[in-house]
């Protein structure tokens, strides 16, 4: 069954990878992609990385983005503008807890809007 994809955007590739590991230990059926750090894996965020992760995480039901600080959101917004045909939403919930709740909700085969509503309600 198709699930809403989850993309984790952080200034640190280690935070994004670590969070992906944390979520994937419990929730296996949801596509979770890490988009952390710059192209050179330095501290920062990359539009290209975010865009690639959106494409990988999408299986037709849309993608939910979770981000940490500063430029992460701006780069996420530009990536969404570039993703065009894919339905994407940005969550304002805290990265770790928000993404975890999002993945659980997505695992129950909810729609993108339902996942977003559930995450918003939780925080």
């Amino acid at each position: 069954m198709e699930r809403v994809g989850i993309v984790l955007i952080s200034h640190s590739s280690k935070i994004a990878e670590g969070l992906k590991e944390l979520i994937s230990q419990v929730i296996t059926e949801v596509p979770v992609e890490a988009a952390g750090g710059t192209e050179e894996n330095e501290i920062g965020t990359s539009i290209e990385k975010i865009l690639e992760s959106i494409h990988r995480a999408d299986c037709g039901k849309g993608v939910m983005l979770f981000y940490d600080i500063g430029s992460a959101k701006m780069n996420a917004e530009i990536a969404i503008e570039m993703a065009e045909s894919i339905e994407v939403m940005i969550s304002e919930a805290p990265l770790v807890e928000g993404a975890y709740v999002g993945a659980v909700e997505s695992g129950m085969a909810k729609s993108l809007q339902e996942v977003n509503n559930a995450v918003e309600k939780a925080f």
Partner: protein
Amino acid sequence: MELQVKDTIQWLEKINEKIQQNKDYLTDLDQAIGDSDHGINMSRGFQEVVKQVNSKDYNTVSDVLKDTAMTLMSKVGGASGPLFGTAFLRFSMGIKGMDAVNQEAFAKGLEDAVAGIMQRGKATIGEKTMVDVWSPVADYFKETAKVQAEDVVYTAKNAMEQTKEIMATKGRASYFKEKSIGHIDPGAASSFYVFEALSEVIKEEE
């Protein structure tokens, strides 16, 4: 003033020189009220911009600035990437289809750039950001009959120095609240180099 493709590339090269020379200064400013990567990010970004615009043949100023935008967005890493990137992208769109950019067209490009920065950063004037430099410079280009090189530097420098007195309410600096007062905003400082470089290009024309 009239800006051709070669002048635009020269402008970008001069911006790059200034950013490289002041990389440590920009990082110091950012250390006070940010995360101390502004100099490093901008230096990486503009180094790539110069490499990019010198590797291709361009027909229009708009195309040069569009490539500048895309390079900054993908290479900078911090918030300055999407912000400066959006500025140059909107600028390039504002002057699309023009062979050479005269003052009127340049003013239009700048106005679009300012709108882009404000929209992308959800910022307005007086919040201790790059907007506080871009906006008065855009106004100067719009309201002056004939742009003078010294006035461009003066406007940008004065605007940059005024960011010192403001308390940041946007961006990473806003976490520092009152502590942000007394420091020039790093994004305003690098914006000053952008316009200082521009004034040198204009001066050569005069």
